[in-house]
């Protein structure tokens, strides 16, 4: 649990927050302090989350929803408590609308298979040109299975969606609109309320890939008026292996099961079975109970800091990083140039150095960034790039780490520029 309870409006006490993350004090590459700027790929974990996992396995590890003994009851209680914490965190109406899955990818696949089973030839699925492969390939497979057609909301060169194209792309054929809430490459925060409003008017359901938004922005599913929201625990201080699909109850109730097996059934006959109530209908097999419980602790931590505070800190840091990077020669930045409309993800290229070389050279200075296509090959083609470097920040990053990044870029130029 974060002892650092923030006062709303006060700057984050980053130095104190950093003490909660043991990994941030390690050195890499022969004594360089770690500067971890790969948070869009996975975040680090506070002591409280690590302790929650250890506590689960030390004290009450047992299968959930099955045992009639003490440990199983405790595990089930804590597992369901975690579901309610996450419900409150995204302001969902009911905990039964939250399905624990492995990650965002599995959440999107669940919807593509289950809700997608009602799509037919002639139906359309609307995506955008900036989607992560995990919000693209499941829909390509659904299009192959159903004969539905994929359509794409285009991008402006500044990395924002061309919303003027939306009315022309939506029609009574549109069944599903699946877009990223916040881009994992461009950082763009998309106008998803407006997309949802127009999509609903056309009779489509809306899925938001919220892998980058839920960890970094206040997210209220009722205010967003979306129908499905998919996110991963490991990008929001939680452990790997657990993620969440939120869906509107009436939709989830109308959908067939995705994975089949234990826990998701009510009555099983040899020829036919009836399915369990929500959320169990979609949670076949033994879940990552310890992971879900630790994710609940991560949500406690983020709530204690305050998501408004996280967002404000990251907006300040992004503005600073954009300013520092734009001050260097030979930098190409992708995405919106102001932190007002973007999150703390900055894709860039530098001095004609291939991003992979840049990744290696920055790592020598202790700076961890991502290099490559970021699972967004169509977006890379749209940007005219094979790959980019990407620095992404979180609540525990600070300005001096941006300065180390700039210094390390200077060193990289000396070798390869």
């Amino acid at each position, binding site marked *: 649990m974060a002892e650092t309870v923030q006062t709303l409006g006060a700057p984050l006490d980053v130095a104190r927050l950093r003490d909660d993350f043991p990994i941030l004090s390690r050195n890499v590459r022969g004594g360089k302090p770690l500067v971890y700027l790969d948070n869009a790929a996975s975040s680090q974990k506070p002591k409280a989350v690590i302790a929650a996992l250890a506590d689960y396995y030390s004290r009450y590890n047992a299968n959930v929803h099955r045992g009639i003994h003490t440990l199983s009851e405790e595990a089930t209680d804590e597992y369901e408590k975690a579901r309610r914490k996450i419900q409150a965190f995204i302001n969902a109406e009911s905990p039964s609308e939250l399905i624990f899955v492995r990650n965002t990818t599995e959440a999107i696949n669940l919807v593509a298979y289950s809700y997608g089973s009602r799509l037919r030839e002639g139906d359309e699925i609307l995506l955008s040109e900036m989607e992560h492969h995990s919000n693209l390939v499941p829909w390509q497979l659904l299009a192959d299975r159903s004969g539905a057609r994929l359509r794409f909301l285009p991008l402006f060169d500044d990395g924002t969606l061309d919303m003027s194209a939306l009315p022309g792309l939506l029609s009574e054929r549109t069944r599903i609109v699946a877009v990223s809430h916040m881009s994992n490459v461009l950082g763009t925060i998309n106008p998803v309320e407006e997309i949802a409003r127009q999509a609903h008017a056309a009779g489509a359901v809306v899925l938001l890939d919220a892998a980058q938004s839920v960890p970094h922005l206040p997210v209220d599913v009722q205010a967003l008026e979306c129908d499905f929201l998919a996110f991963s625990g490991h990008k929001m201080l939680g452990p790997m292996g657990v993620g969440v699909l939120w869906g509107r109850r009436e939709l989830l109730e109308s959908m067939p099961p995705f994975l089949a097996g234990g826990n998701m059934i009510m009555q099983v006959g040899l020829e036919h079975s009836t399915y369990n109530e929500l959320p169990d209908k979609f949670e076949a097999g033994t879940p990552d109970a310890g992971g879900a419980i630790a994710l609940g602790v991560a949500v406690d931590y983020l709530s204690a800091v305050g998501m408004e505070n996280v967002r404000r800190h990251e907006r300040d840091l992004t503005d600073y990083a954009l300013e520092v990077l734009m001050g260097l020669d030979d930098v190409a930045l992708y995405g919106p140039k102001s932190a007002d409309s973007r999150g703390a993800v900055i894709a860039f290229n530098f001095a004609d150095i*291939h991003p*992979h*070389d840049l990744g*290696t050279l920055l790592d020598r200075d202790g700076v961890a960034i991502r290099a490559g296509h970021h699972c967004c090959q169509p977006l890379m083609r749209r940007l005219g790039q*094979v*790959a980019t470097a990407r620095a992404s920040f979180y609540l525990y990053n600070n300005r001096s780490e941006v300065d180390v990044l700039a210094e390390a870029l200077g*060193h990289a130029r000396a*070798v*390869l520029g």
Partner: protein
Amino acid sequence: MSFQFDDELYRDIILDHYRNPRNKGDLEPADVSVSANNPLCGDEVTITARLSADGSSVAELHFSGRGCSISQASASMMTEEIEGKPLAEALKVINKFKEMMLAEGDVEGLGDLEALQGVKRYPVRIKCAVLPWNSLLQGLTDKAGTAT
């Protein structure tokens, strides 16, 4: 803070081949043409070769593509090393190079290619170095397959 030009990865000879690539551009027509990419980092390479009239040796060997310094320098060095070699000897060098990169193969007889040994300390980059070599190996093997 001064920067250490240690630099077992970015050795001078690698940087030289990266900045001044040899035998760059596609041969057309070509007896062998293979394209490959490394989906992890987006390295792309195309290898084209012409064989001698009797098909017994690699008369000309070119590469094209874009990617990191290691993949591009490795391709450039490969063309210099292999061009002019009889097929059997070319295959021997390719396998010896791969052994050096992927196992504990000795470096004797590899000449300048030895410079790429430093890549081994950066495991994710090994694929970059080996990419052009795998492409050439596939091209020559396919060619040998259709010839017999």
